[in-house]
């Protein structure tokens, strides 16, 4: 049974399209995504909605699902995400290697942190398997894998004492930023582009705010007032992003990460701006649904099949970069890349739903004939 259109799938669809476009650096259409005018970007939305979807996955705190079953289910999801990461990474490497051979241009082997894979396959393949080596723009799923691995802790705490989940998350976040804790990469020395210990806050915020009662309920009851506060934050954020206004990072007080604009650490200014964005934009969904229902249906279809669509869009982004490189990037090429990319993403989602509908029909027929 295919899910009805809902705001979560719709916004997730928007995040997927936006990630696809923004993962093609230099593309003309990136200026039309919210990333160009917002401190936060689609990655924040994607992770927040993943947390929101986690609430649907595990049910209410009163759910009778045994803890061990819940844990296994979440880790099972983490394994699915891990496998998706490995598959898309291998496809990306094959594309880079194939095009490099075709063009006799080894520069392409250097792209997106791929050099180590070809120069030192022994260690780097271990790094890829351990997700400690990540290709550029292929670094959101490793974050998601770790978040899903950590998820049982938050879900089980939520069952025992729902009011402790957010403080626990904030504590981890505060310590991570305060002591600049990072997850190292290997075999190339560095740190994860998305720090899971910091980004878990957005994931947990999604999980907590999705609740009908508790803090989620409280927010819903006061949404009008919250939007009044959020709107100026959003407008200020637009100016800060567009004109690059921010305090000199060397002059902010210690602990500096509490005041910097860092994507790696999903720092507080970024989180506040993102929450303001969510509060303001959530009011638009009913109107978009009313006046552009086809758009809502389309994006919700992408959102319903987010993992597969995300995987295909990651590959398409890479292909888009190669096409731009081959044809020396122009508005016409960029337009073709974006249209073809979104159509293929939509075809992927449609195919998955067609297969689901087909299987449902077969099951119904089998059930009817057996009865």
């Amino acid at each position, binding site marked *: 049974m295919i899910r009805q259109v809902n705001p979560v799938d719709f916004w997730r669809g928007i995040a997927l399209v936006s990630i696809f476009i923004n993962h093609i*650096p*230099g593309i003309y259409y990136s200026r039309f995504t919210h990333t160009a005018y917002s401190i936060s970007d689609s990655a924040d939305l994607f992770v927040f909605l993943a947390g929101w979807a986690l609430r649907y996955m595990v049910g209410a705190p009163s759910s009778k699902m045994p803890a061990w079953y819940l844990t296994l289910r979440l880790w099972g999801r983490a394994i699915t995400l891990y496998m998706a990461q490995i598959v898309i990474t291998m496809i990306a490497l094959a594309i880079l290697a194939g095009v*490099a051979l075709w*063009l*006799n*241009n*080894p*520069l392409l*082997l*250097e*792209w*997106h*942190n*791929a*050099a*180590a894979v*070809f*120069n*030192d396959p*022994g*260690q*780097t393949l271990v790094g890829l398997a351990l997700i400690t080596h*990540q*290709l*550029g*723009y292929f670094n959101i799923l490793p974050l998601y894998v770790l978040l899903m691995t950590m998820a049982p802790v938050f879900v089980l705490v939520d069952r025992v004492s729902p009011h402790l989940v957010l403080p626990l998350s904030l504590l981890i976040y505060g310590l991570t930023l305060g002591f*600049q804790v990072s997850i190292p990469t290997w*075999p*190339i*020395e*560095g*740190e994860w*582009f998305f720090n899971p210990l910091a980004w878990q806050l957005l994931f947990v915020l999604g999980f907590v705010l999705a609740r009908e009662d508790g803090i989620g309920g409280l927010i819903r009851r006061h949404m009008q007032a919250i939007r009044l506060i959020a709107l100026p934050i959003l407008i200020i954020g637009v100016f800060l992003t567009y004109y690059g206004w921010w305090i*000199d*990072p*060397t002059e*902010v007080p210690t602990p*500096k*990460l509490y005041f*910097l*604009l*860092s994507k*790696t650490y999903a720092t507080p200014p970024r989180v506040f701006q993102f929450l303001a964005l969510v509060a303001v934009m959530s009011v638009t969904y009913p109107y978009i649904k009313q006046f552009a229902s086809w758009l809502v249906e389309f994006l919700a279809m992408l959102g319903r099949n987010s993992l597969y669509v995300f995987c295909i869009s990651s590959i398409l982004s890479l292909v888009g*970069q190669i096409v*731009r*490189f081959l044809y*020396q*990037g122009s508005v016409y090429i960029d337009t073709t890349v974006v249209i073809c990319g979104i159509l293929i993403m939509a075809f992927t989602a449609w195919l998955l739903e067609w297969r689901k509908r087909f299987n449902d029909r077969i099951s119904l027929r089998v059930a009817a004939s057996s009865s």
Partner: protein
Amino acid sequence: MAKTFQRSHQLAGGSVVVLSTLLLSVLAWAQAWGQDNVVPPSTSQVPFSQDCQIGDIAVATESPLPNVAAALRQRKQIKILAFGASSSVKQGPMRRGHTEETRQILQRAITGLNVIMINRGVGGELSSQAAERIQNDVALNEPDMVLWQVGTEDALAYTPLAELETTIIDTVRWLKQHKVDIVLVGLQYVDRMERDEHYRAVRQLLNRISASENVMIVRRYEAQKQLARTQLNGSNPFQDEFERSEAGYVCLAQYLARAITIGIFRERGRPLPNPNLPRPSN
């Protein structure tokens, strides 16, 4: 007699002044070395391996690294923040990132020096994205120097040159303003890209910025091109361009170490003992 005495006295006085000045200079020099306990290397201590010999080509422009030199003087420790693509290189039985290799060469070359290398490279990142992170990471890590491999991703993504120029110049000036030295690492050499106009334009832009802003640039492209020519002459063991790409990182680590060493000791006014240092060619 009196005149002679007076002249002798003057001569003696002059000699005393000259000798005293010389003595003081020597003492000051000796004291500086004594305080530092840092021995300047000869180029033979920052060697190029057989595969990375590039003849008379200058590895880097001779721009001073005053903040690194000051750090060396005061703390015997330098902190380097590295941005840009990275790969691992094989040295003996070990494999490590090429920036880590640079760190080890520097430590071996300059006795008593402790080098902290912080790698913050993100694959596929444009210069504008890196520029934002550079400011944050400088605030967080307080480095003495930033090593920025810049331009390749922008060349591949066809970033407009004016935009790229503004980004790099703004970042270079910001770093100087914050007393952080910068070493730019230029584009890689690949045969196929020789004819790519945008690639060439980005390379020229980097050289222009290096000259106008007086910042050091490691001439990776020129060095790799020379290596490729050597290979064509049959005196280099690399078999094809793909292998050359891997070997390029080994050489890059060595070129970086040499360039940084030159930058430090040029600033300190102590020419490296080896007079045959490569000179800039432009």
